[in-house]
């Protein structure tokens, strides 16, 4: 299109542009002192970009902040002593979470007891702060151990293929046929109730997801030329898996791990709620709800005994989910958000 034609076209249209002065744009005062950076960002690792994207995701940062605050709160809620030596002397909780006072049973929220008291007169705020120790430790330990089992098994299945793959993945398929919570209940029926029994049940149901994810990733990563190159150079299988394949296949595992901390905490609370978790005396959040429900606190209108522990679980799971979605978007900006989630919400 020539200049003349354009000119005519502009005249014919309803909008005519004239008096455009290109020079004034070039010479105008700069709006800010921004300069294009000469420093190249090429070659900075994937983690650098992931962190950069994560930092600009406000919801994810909010989630991370809530998790950090809750963790600090529960660590400093009561002093911790290891073998008689005080490791952590600070006590933030206003009351002893186990201190009973039958006279003030079910007192409503007040300046003295911000979240009220439960049936035995125990301060609910203190119990929630202290009780986070169970939920959080179960969440992190169970997810960590499940990863330690699932990642190597999935890696072996994906890398070697053949009958090893068949064997491992058929076990995974079989266990996947049972809903998470039903399988956990069945395992607790065998093992009995208790802290480590519950961790065990959550690990045995949790490792499947990692095995499945890492196997799929490895199947696609191992087709890369650098794997063939490493093989040609005589690298051992163990070295190829741990040095070349796993680091390139870990991103989805990290995302899954973050999200499943929420799932595991929720499952632990659900088990506590149905009375198959920790002992009724403990301040675990699900157990607190169970006790409130069993004692008829809801029917009698003592709402605070149930609302505050429930809100604590909800806030924790919500924050972990926001954090996990943020981590996923950070690693995989083109990927789909929150649609491929396994049915984890109990």
């Amino acid at each position, binding site marked *: 299109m020539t200049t003349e034609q354009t000119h005519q076209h502009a005249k014919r249209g309803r909008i005519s542009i004239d008096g455009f002065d290109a020079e004034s744009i070039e010479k105008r005062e700069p709006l800010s002192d921004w300069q294009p950076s000469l420093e190249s960002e090429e070659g900075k690792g994937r983690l650098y970009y992931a962190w950069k994207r994560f930092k600009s995701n406000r919801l994810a940062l909010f989630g991370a902040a809530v998790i950090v605050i809750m963790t600090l709160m529960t660590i400093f809620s009561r002093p911790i002593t290891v073998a008689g030596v005080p490791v952590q002397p600070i006590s933030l909780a206003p009351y002893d979470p186990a201190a009973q006072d039958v006279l003030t049973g079910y007192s409503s929220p007040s300046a003295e007891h911000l979240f009220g008291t439960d049936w035995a007169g125990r301060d609910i705020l203190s119990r929630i702060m202290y009780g986070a120790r169970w939920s959080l430790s179960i969440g992190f330990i169970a997810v960590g151990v499940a990863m330690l089992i699932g990642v190597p098994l999935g890696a072996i299945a994906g890398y070697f293929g053949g009958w090893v793959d068949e064997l491992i993945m*058929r076990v995974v*398929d*079989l*266990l996947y*046929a*049972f*809903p*998470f*919570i*039903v*399988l956990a*209940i*069945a395992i*607790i*029926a*065998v093992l009995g109730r208790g802290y480590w029994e519950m961790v065990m049940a959550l690990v045995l149901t949790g490792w499947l997801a990692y095995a499945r994810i890492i196997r799929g990733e490895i199947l696609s990563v191992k087709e890369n030329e650098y794997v063939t190159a490493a093989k040609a150079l005589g690298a051992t299988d163990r070295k190829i898996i741990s040095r070349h394949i796993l680091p390139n296949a870990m991103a989805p595992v990290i995302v899954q791990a973050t999200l499943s901390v*929420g799932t595991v905490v*929720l499952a632990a*609370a*659900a088990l506590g*709620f*149905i*009375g*198959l978790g920790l002992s009724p005396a403990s301040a675990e959040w*699900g157990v607190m*709800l169970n006790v*409130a*429900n069993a004692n008829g606190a*809801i*029917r009698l*209108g003592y*709402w605070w005994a*149930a*609302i505050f522990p*429930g*809100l604590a*679980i*909800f806030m924790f*799971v*919500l924050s972990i*989910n*926001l954090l996990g979605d943020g981590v996923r978007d950070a690693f995989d900006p083109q990927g*789909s958000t*929150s*649609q491929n*989630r396994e*049915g984890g*919400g*109990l």
Partner: protein
Amino acid sequence: MSLQRYVLKRVLVTIPILIGATMLTFGLVALTPGDPVDYIIAFQDVSPEVEQQLREQYGLDKPLFMQYLDWLAGVVQFDFGDSISNQRPVTELIMERLPYTLLMGSMAFMVTLITAIPTGIIAAYYRGSVIDQASRVFSVVGIAIPNFFLGILLLLIFASQLNIFPFLAPSSGGALTPEMAVYTLLPAITIGTGATALLMRLMRSSMIEELDKDYVTMARAKGLPERTVVNKHVLRNSLISVVTVAAIQVAFIISGSVVVEIVFSYPGIGRLLVNSVGARDFPVIQALVLLIGVAVILANLLADILYAYLDPRIRY
């Protein structure tokens, strides 16, 4: 591959998983220390000969594999033995409770479909609008809220404060009475909320994917009314991927019912399972775990077949 061949192949793949499920549920009890005879003689003074006789009577002196086959022979005839805690046949106990759970599950499924599909469509069509934002917030909250907490909240609001719903299940009349249906509404909503949150997001994203395709532009260019474009073209194609998730919903609703039945003291199989674990009533636990596993496996099979029927590309 024709549909028949695909179905046949899928069914054949399912059989080993079903057998595995029976082995797993049987192994559950085999792993547990102590056998039924130990429970029977726990509080009695019994001579070793009588104990031996009892073991023979229950077939516990045979090798484990033979015991498994004996058990399996019963299972295929729906005979799971007798409950330890109240001596009644396990099948009878389950059949008493099953209608209630089925009622609750199907109501929860209806709640999910009725709410999730329209809202998902609207959220996708008016992307970025207030409705879309609201549905996003709802799904984030719906996924994170523990169903037992939601159940307690609903009880607090509708039963305790507003007095619209009763606190306890109607004690007589069985599952198919209007009173029971009304009582089941709150548990069904409780379970349905989480499922809705998941399904709504899926509906939205699969709608959006379809809306961006060329055939939609084509349909609009032909001058079809927008209603026809959405209902006849986009909706039908985006429902295909929603069908597969329906299977996940079945598992979701089953696991939800276990916990929610405790909140509402609902007389279904979930509460039976939890109570049986408390009482260490293994025949009942075994039967229920197997029943739930088989239900989920069959739901997956059905969803796969339905998916292949709706989308012939799947049959590769």
